[in-house]
């Protein structure tokens, strides 16, 4: 946000800090401890372990040792590398952060984006799933505007792709069409591969009311992985019914995550009248393997610039 008037700027900053404090208190009440991400990261290390990242968007700095560093473009990977260098996977860790990320935008501008988020590491999977998703819901409901939590699981589609022997190129193309919700091009593609009578033809219909979608998806379950995906969603559904917030959740089994590291439950929070997601997150157990120990891991990130804007609008 940019201001012309310093009083107005102070006012907004105060308001924003208030929201942050409120959220920090909430995270601490839930047993999470604050962690400070490092500002600089080694460029080579970062690019090696985040191959999907657009390296031109990272802000580079030359260190006194003539090495290239970048201003952190992402917080989760940043704190994970900090944590795993000093932690063996036990006891369970629950951390939250309140920080900024830096990215190059078009026309050479450096963009700063405020983010807060939580990560739960090494905890019991179904307990952590419930806890994290419920916290995400509570962040959304505090916006004071109508909202929807969109939820899916990467394991449902992954499990299916394991059953069929498809070459990687075709699989990527199919995933890409699913991620764009492109039903007719998907149909054409499936026909050409003789896959039109599979679950892939129905996957874009598997969106909406949790109970209906789960019932429908059960009929196509083919292996333990797919069953596991639905079981974990089923458990979260029971929790939502219990808390009477099931109406705010839409299940979408055709969700394809933006980041490659998720495996398991994934979710995004949308607020009415805001064109982009407010928060996003999911389970990423497999990703932790690259730090040496595979542990259960789930978390989410909140775009605090958007949250502030929505709350200020609500105040007026």
């Amino acid at each position, binding site marked *: 946000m940019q201001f012309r008037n310093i009083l107005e700027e102070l006012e907004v900053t105060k308001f924003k800090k208030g929201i942050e404090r409120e959220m920090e208190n909430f995270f601490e009440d839930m047993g999470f401890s604050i962690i400070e991400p490092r500002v600089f990261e080694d460029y080579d290390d970062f690019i090696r372990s985040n191959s999907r990242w657009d390296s031109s968007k990272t802000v580079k700095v030359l260190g006194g040792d003539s090495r290239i560093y970048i201003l952190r473009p992402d917080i989760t990977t940043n704190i994970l590398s900090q944590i795993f260098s000093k932690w063996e996977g036990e006891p369970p860790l629950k951390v939250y952060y309140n920080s900024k990320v830096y990215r190059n935008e078009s026309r050479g501008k450096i963009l700063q984006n405020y983010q807060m988020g939580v990560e739960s590491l090494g905890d019991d999977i179904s307990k952590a799933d419930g806890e994290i998703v419920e916290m995400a819901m509570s962040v959304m409901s505090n916006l004071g505007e*109508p909202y*929807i939590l*969109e939820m899916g699981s990467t394991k449902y589609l992954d499990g299916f792709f394991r059953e069929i022997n498809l070459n990687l190129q075709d699989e990527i193309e199919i995933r890409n069409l699913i991620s*764009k*919700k*492109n*039903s*007719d*091009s998907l149909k*054409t593609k499936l026909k050409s591969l003789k896959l039109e009578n599979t679950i892939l033809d129905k996957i874009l219909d598997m*969106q*909406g009311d949790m109970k209906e979608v789960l019932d429908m998806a059960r009929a196509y379950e083919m292996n333990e992985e797919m069953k596991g995906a639905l079981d974990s969603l089923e458990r979260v559904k029971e929790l939502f019914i219990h808390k009477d917030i099931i109406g705010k959740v*839409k299940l979408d089994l055709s969700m394809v995550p933006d980041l490659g590291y998720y495996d398991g439950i994934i979710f995004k929070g*949308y*607020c*009415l*009248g*805001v*064109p*982009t*997601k407010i928060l996003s997150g999911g389970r990423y157990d497999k990703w932790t393997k690259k730090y040496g120990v595979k542990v259960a891991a789930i978390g989410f990130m909140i775009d605090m610039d958007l949250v502030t804007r929505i709350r200020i609008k609500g105040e007026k």
Partner: protein
Amino acid sequence: MDILTIAIAKGRLGKKGLELFKDTEYEIIMEEDSRKLVYNNANKKINFIFVKPCDVVTYVEKGVADLGIVGKDTILEDNKDIYEVLDLGFGKCRFVVAGFEDQNLVKKNEVLTIATNYPSYVESVFKDRGQLVEIIKLGGAVELAPLMGLSEVIVDIVETGNTLRDNGLVVLEELDTISARLIVNKASYRFKYSEIKKIEKVLGGV
């Protein structure tokens, strides 16, 4: 019930897109030669806004419009975070690399100059080829560039190939196929799911 807003590219593509809504509950009556940019449907089901083709994607990404009808060429160039739900089947053409007949697209240790309307798209196409390229962005009449020695080749959309032929250029390589697409904002998709599904049904696709 929520009113939907749809952004439509001004020009030929938009006109074709508008025809798809004829005789449906979403139809609008337009006055001849009007310069009006916003139209409300009589049933209060949908607003139409008419914008430049390259702005359709922006309007949808920013959520000002829930949906948009736009060519795949613009979508490829802009690479924005939106859903692309239907291939509408009209406005078919093709991205091609074109130039003089004897032009080689692989030039060892030398820079290949490319004139185009679509610089980001060209960059993404040539990124993994190991060929050094210099991209020259033009606003139109791209075919002129090789003739005047501004560039060696061009990347442009071609429907019949007549313009190329008339200027003595040939297709050197065929790239992506293009047609009109229905795009949707990701948040609108969730909040107005059933209305958007209804529009998808009306427009039908290929």
